[in-house]
């Protein structure tokens, strides 16, 4: 978005002016980028800050000084702890189930051409782009119609449903970039189909499986809309928070949010560092 226009001045003058303007444009863009990043981080900073708030009342709304006590009293609210535990259980199970099923679908879509692959792709696409609200609502319709009670199993069903597509798409795009002859080479060298998959294909798609699984985990632990429809009286972390806002969030929520944030940060930072180190030996 350098906004230099050709000026009618001498041709030999132009390069310097242009460079200077470009530098200015770049600098503006640079500042803009950081402004947006700052904006994106504001609510997180506030959340973290108020986890250290030495609030006296039940309501954590005004800053009254720094304290670490809420970190010590993290698990003091049993219902919140339970909700977080539920969220973690569901997210882990979802990662395993949706990770497996999604990987299989991704493999099939990436590797084979078959009758119905177009339809499968379309369904994947529909799941990803359908409004969450509608998916949650339709699942509730189904559960109501079939008299299935709501709880952790129904939440899990819903989470796996929308996670499969994401995992499948991630795995599929990796499989598409794979040289399919590599697996054939393994078969050619005496490996049975399963051995070839275990020793060759799976290690190669593993990064995609991992990031698909991570995506499934994140989607699950953060999901509110679909969970809200399928949870019944079961509480998950986002549901509990949403409910608790009506009477004021206890500082423990900020602390938990901060800790989850920190863990996510560490994992992602590790990823970035690993990704940075890799190319040095690759190229």
């Amino acid at each position, binding site marked *: 978005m350098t906004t230099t226009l050709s000026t009618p001045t001498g041709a030999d003058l132009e390069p310097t002016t242009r460079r200077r303007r470009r530098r200015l444009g770049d600098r503006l863009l640079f500042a803009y980028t950081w402004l947006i990043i700052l904006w994106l981080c504001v609510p997180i900073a506030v959340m973290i800050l108020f986890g250290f708030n030495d609030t006296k009342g*039940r309501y954590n709304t005004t800053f009254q000084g720094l304290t670490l006590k809420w970190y010590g009293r993290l698990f003091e609210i049993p219902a919140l702890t339970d909700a977080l535990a539920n969220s973690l259980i569901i997210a882990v199970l979802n990662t395993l189930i949706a990770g497996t099923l999604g990987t299989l679908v991704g493999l099939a879509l990436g590797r084979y051409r078959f009758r119905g692959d177009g339809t499968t792709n379309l369904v994947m696409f529909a799941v990803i782009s359908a409004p969450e609200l509608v998916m949650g609502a339709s699942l509730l319709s189904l559960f109501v119609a079939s008299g299935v*009670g709501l709880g952790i199993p129904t939440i899990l069903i819903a989470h796996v449903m929308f996670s499969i597509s994401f995992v499948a798409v991630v795995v599929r795009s990796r499989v598409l970039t794979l040289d399919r002859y590599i697996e054939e080479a393994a078969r050619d060298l005496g490996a049975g189909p399963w051995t070839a998959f275990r020793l060759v294909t799976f290690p190669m798609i593993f990064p995609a499986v991992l990031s698909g699984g991570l995506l499934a985990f994140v989607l699950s632990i953060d999901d509110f809309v679909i969970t809200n429809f399928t949870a019944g009286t079961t509480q998950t972390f986002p549901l509990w928070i949403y409910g*608790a806002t009506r009477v004021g969030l206890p500082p423990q929520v900020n602390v938990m949010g901060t800790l989850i944030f920190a863990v996510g940060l560490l994992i992602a930072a590790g990823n970035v560092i690993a990704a940075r180190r890799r190319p040095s030996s690759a190229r």
Partner: protein
Amino acid sequence: MNEPTPFDPVLFRGMTQRRLSRRDALRISGLSAAALALAACGVKGQGNTTPTAPAEDAIAKYWAGKTKNGKVDFANWPLYMDPKQPELKKFTAETGIKVTYQEVIEEMGPWFARTQPQLSAGQSIGFDLMVITNGIQFKQYVQSSLLAPLDHSKLTNFKANAGASYKTSAYDPGNAYSVPWASGVTGIAYDPAKVKTPITKLADLWKTEYKGRVGMFSDTQELGNFGLMVNGVDPAKSTATDWQNAANKLKEQKDAGIVRKYYDQSYIDALGAGEVWITQAWSGDVFQKNVSDGTNFQFVIPEEGATIWTDNMAIPITAVNPVDAITLMDFFFRVDIAATLAEYINYITPVPEAQKVIKEHAAAASGEDKDFLTSVAESPLVFPSTADYSKLRYYVEFENTALQQQFQSIFEPIVLG
């Protein structure tokens, strides 16, 4: 039984975080008392009892073979018990029954919507005891047979200590499915720091000078009641025409931009954050908010009237531990327990005798605590007097679901507009 250690309430409160704002609390309760002069009279039954009581053998059939399991899951509204749960600790100490207490109910509609599919499917909702308000959903629970019929032979404290009027409610004749937890008044709360002229009437909620600063309830029944009462109609005697007029009145208020938002339990937070200055409110919340946060909000029973409602303990039909649940139910009708509970929540207790105990606590306490407990014992919000009872109205009673749906469809578009 009626001899708690004199330090009990002080001790319990000492563990909470309320101490610093005690003084404000005292001031508020005094002001509330002035605003609300209630006649000493029980909660009257409404007469039009619907014959929904279960047959005798249904009760026997339900309770047959049910035994104590040593635990109970209790679902309640926020701010409805001291967070330290002293009463529950006492219960566990005395009976060995462990209680898991969760403040998961925030509004009746959603709570019914969440539990109904599971209950209808015959599955446990994870709770053995829940506190539900009389009203549309209460009726739906009963009509759909989703509540366990109560075995009154297990409710000896209730029989002995509950106020007479609480045994003759219209919504649950003979307490077939529920016993009261607490009653409260839906009135107006406002912030005197922002609203300079004291609020006295429902009509004040329609004043354009408070444009964008008025909060109303998203619960169609609570909202509809105010619309009816501002028009001078008693909700319990209202007709479909009245409903339409009330809706028009409410629409007027909304279209003029007076209403900031239609709130659920979060209204109290919005009041605290200065989002709204005047709002529909539940009596005890305001008191608690003032105590907890040192705010100075006022609660008013408007001249045109306010509604009284009762929250009731009920056992969902699929409860896993119904015997433990009914034991806990009855426990709350012990006078000492009712007293400490009322001391904290400041809603109307169904156990009139509790007043005496609180007075005893007050006598035993000293300084601020003494003042505080005295004010509770004398608060018309906890122990209503007869005087202004004429101002309190009951909810609309629907004869059938069609009428109820009609009521909802009239007021719903206002909330969802």
